[in-house]
């Protein structure tokens, strides 16, 4: 018997699938029944089918440290994670509420600065954020939206409550893997789809194209939308090309673009062609060598001028990363109250600011109990997981925080929920998180579910694929 659910270890953690020995949570009951019908060789067959599908479909990602291997196979665990629609509705509302507030905030940062004048958030925090761009001051954008595409990371605590871990407002990635996970799962476990009405994800590329088209300058109909990629060596190149393909947009590199009289053109076989909207997957600082990093070959000279004049739209807008800062994150509940006069539907993880005296003292004295994160890193780099860290690591972070408190926040270690993952010794619980994607311009859209990322090692909390994490197809179902 492959799935020995009565031996499935349940600790003091919320498991997404199993509620008590041998019993599934309501949304996963039919899943368990289906899985139990599979013989050992069936399971093996399905695993092989999944591997083959991923290989032929060419679903891959890049790890920078992995020299020479620029496309590694995407790791997928075939057991889907199932969430009830009822529960999801609340999350959906919470995410839209959150992004609405965040966009009002970013717009406020670069325009009226009301929230600072009203002393809800200290202005120095924003001006000191590496994501703040003085070049964006005074810019007004269609629908006042700056972060058009957001990937917000959610976790569940020991009681199963969804909490926001962070908002990724710069160039969040992973959505292509969410879509491809679904495609593979359909091939591998087709019969499971007969037992469930799974909310489809097919609409994402359309929604993305709608969002991008809606922000075109002069409200142009059928605007020329392009995806700007740093090129094939970027870790998310697969996704860039996938999204361009799904939207029927050109995938351009910086060298494909030129600026003439503050307008953006791309070099085509029929000469130059005007570009209206750029879905950029290049970091702010590489967008325009005239304004930012002058050595950058990834962007195009004069792009910021074209953007400031309103001749081209950029998503996410330059400067949107100011709200991506983990210190700013701690203020999001206050933003929601301030701009929308509502209580947050989704809570933050309790957080300590190392720049505040009292909180700083608490952090320094309790590092062994806390998770410390740099305010502006992504991909899980530069973190300290106190309870799992050595003495010397803790000392190293003490020094780092003393030196630059503004750059760190600390959070209690939340025992991320687990989900069964197929290992060589049967199904075992592994920690997971969830990244839904939120689109915003004149409308809002939230992907039903999102990308579930899995820490493949026992007890590990590191879910980033760049650090060996895996993934799961995520289902939102009516139960």
């Amino acid at each position, binding site marked *: 018997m492959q799935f020995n659910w009565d031996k499935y270890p349940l600790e003091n953690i919320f498991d997404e699938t199993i509620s008590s020995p041998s019993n599934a949570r309501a949304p996963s009951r039919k899943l368990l029944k289906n899985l139990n019908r599979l013989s050992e060789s069936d399971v093996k067959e399905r695993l092989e089918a999944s591997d083959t599908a991923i290989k032929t479909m060419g679903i891959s990602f890049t790890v920078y440290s992995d020299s020479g291997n620029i496309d590694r196979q995407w790791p997928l665990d075939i057991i889907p994670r199932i969430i009830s629609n009822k529960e999801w509705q609340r999350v959906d509302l919470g995410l839209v509420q959150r992004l609405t507030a965040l966009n009002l905030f970013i717009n406020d940062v670069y325009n009226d600065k009301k929230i600072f004048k009203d002393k809800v958030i200290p202005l120095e925090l924003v001006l000191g954020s590496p994501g703040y761009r003085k070049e964006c001051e005074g810019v007004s954008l269609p629908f006042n939206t700056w972060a058009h595409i957001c990937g917000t990371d959610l976790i569940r605590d020991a009681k199963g409550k969804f909490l926001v871990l962070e908002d990724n407002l710069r160039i969040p990635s992973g959505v292509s893997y969410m879509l491809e996970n679904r495609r593979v799962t359909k091939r591998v476990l087709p019969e499971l789809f007969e037992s469930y009405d799974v909310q489809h994800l097919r609409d994402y590329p359309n929604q993305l194209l709608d969002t991008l088209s809606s922000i075109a300058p002069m409200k142009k109909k059928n605007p020329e939308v392009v995806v700007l990629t740093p090129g094939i060596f970027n870790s998310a190149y697969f996704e860039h090309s996938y999204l361009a*393909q799904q939207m029927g*947009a*050109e995938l351009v590199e910086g060298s494909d673009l030129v600026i003439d009289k503050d307008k953006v053109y791309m070099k085509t076989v029929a000469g130059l062609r005007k570009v209206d909207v750029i879905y950029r997957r290049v970091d702010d600082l590489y967008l325009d060598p005239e304004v930012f990093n002058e050595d950058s070959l990834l962007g195009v000279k004069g792009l910021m001028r074209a953007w400031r004049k309103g001749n081209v739209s950029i998503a996410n807008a330059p400067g949107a990363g100011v709200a991506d800062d983990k210190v700013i994150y701690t203020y999001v509940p206050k933003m929601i109250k301030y701009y929308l006069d509502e209580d947050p539907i989704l809570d933050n993880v309790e957080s300590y600011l190392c720049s505040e005296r009292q909180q700083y003292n608490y952090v320094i004295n309790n590092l062994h109990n806390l998770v410390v994160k740099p305010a502006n890193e992504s991909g899980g780099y530069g973190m300290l997981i106190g309870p799992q860290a050595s003495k010397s690591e803790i000392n190293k972070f003490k020094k780092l925080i003393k030196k630059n408190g503004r750059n760190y926040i600390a959070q209690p270690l939340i025992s991320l929920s687990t989900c069964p993952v197929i290992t060589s010794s049967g199904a075992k619980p592994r920690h997971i998180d969830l990244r839904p994607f939120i689109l915003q311009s004149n409308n809002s859209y939230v992907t039903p579910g999102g990308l579930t990322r899995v820490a493949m090692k026992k007890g590990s909390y590191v879910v980033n694929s760049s650090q060996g994490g895996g993934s799961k197809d995520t289902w939102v179902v009516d139960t």
Partner: protein
Amino acid sequence: MLSRVAHRLYWLARYIERAENTSRIINVNSNLLFDLPTGSRVSWKTLIDITGSEELYKQLYSTFDERSIMKYLISDSRNPSSIICCLQMARENARTTREILPAECWEKINETYHIAIEDIAGGIGRKNRYESLQKIIYGCQLLVGLLSGTMSNNAAYDFMRIGRNLERADMGTRLIDMGCMNFLTDSSLTDDESHIPDLYQPILWMNILISLSAFQMYRQHVRERVNGIDVVNYLLKDNDFPRAVMHCLNQIQECLEKLPDGIHIAMEVEKIKRSITRAKTKVNIDKKLHEFIDDLQIRFIKIDDNINAQWFLV
């Protein structure tokens, strides 16, 4: 469409065609050897001659034995025209133009590449050579079929068709040339070079036809005993057979005329076509024919140069 993307698609098609053609000539040459008397002076080196890469080969290998030549043509990563290298570069170009290609096409290229990687050892030894190379040929053909059945006949498709047909025309002329070289009874031939007794001429030409999958079509078209002059004429001048040089040039011309500012290159192609029509290939397989073929290949290179200058070097 972007110039950079057009460039990649053009080469994607060329690489796929080259991988297929190399697989074909290896299979046919292997077959030919079984038909010829032992001790005949046909050699594996012919394959190096056809691919026009003797210089590189000599840098890498010391003898022209079967195994070295197979390794060089099939799997050697130092030979940019080896089957594996071609498939790898085709895959890389497909990976970087996925937004343009129908999804199944990327999957097919990817799959063909993986099959080749896993199977490659088999192709070097004699036992499984035919099967493993045949798989690659089918993989490439399937791709061409998929493209023709699923891709809009837009500029992207035209660039791929040009690349494919130019590569095909080039290989066609190389094979004709190989036939010529084998029958030049010229005393300038050194011992190193192959020479086949006249008696076996039809067998050689039949094999050339077979390597282009042209044997049956030729039979239906030319109802005479296979002979060199007829085969050369057919492979150069036939309008209907997809791997005949004239047919390839027609296709290239058609695509060029559709592309923005392609007309002047199309006119160059027209000129090449005219000189093929005028060529007196009815007379003899001789040195003149070899020179004519040489000239054709130079003109193909010029077409490639013009395409580069017109669309890719923006």
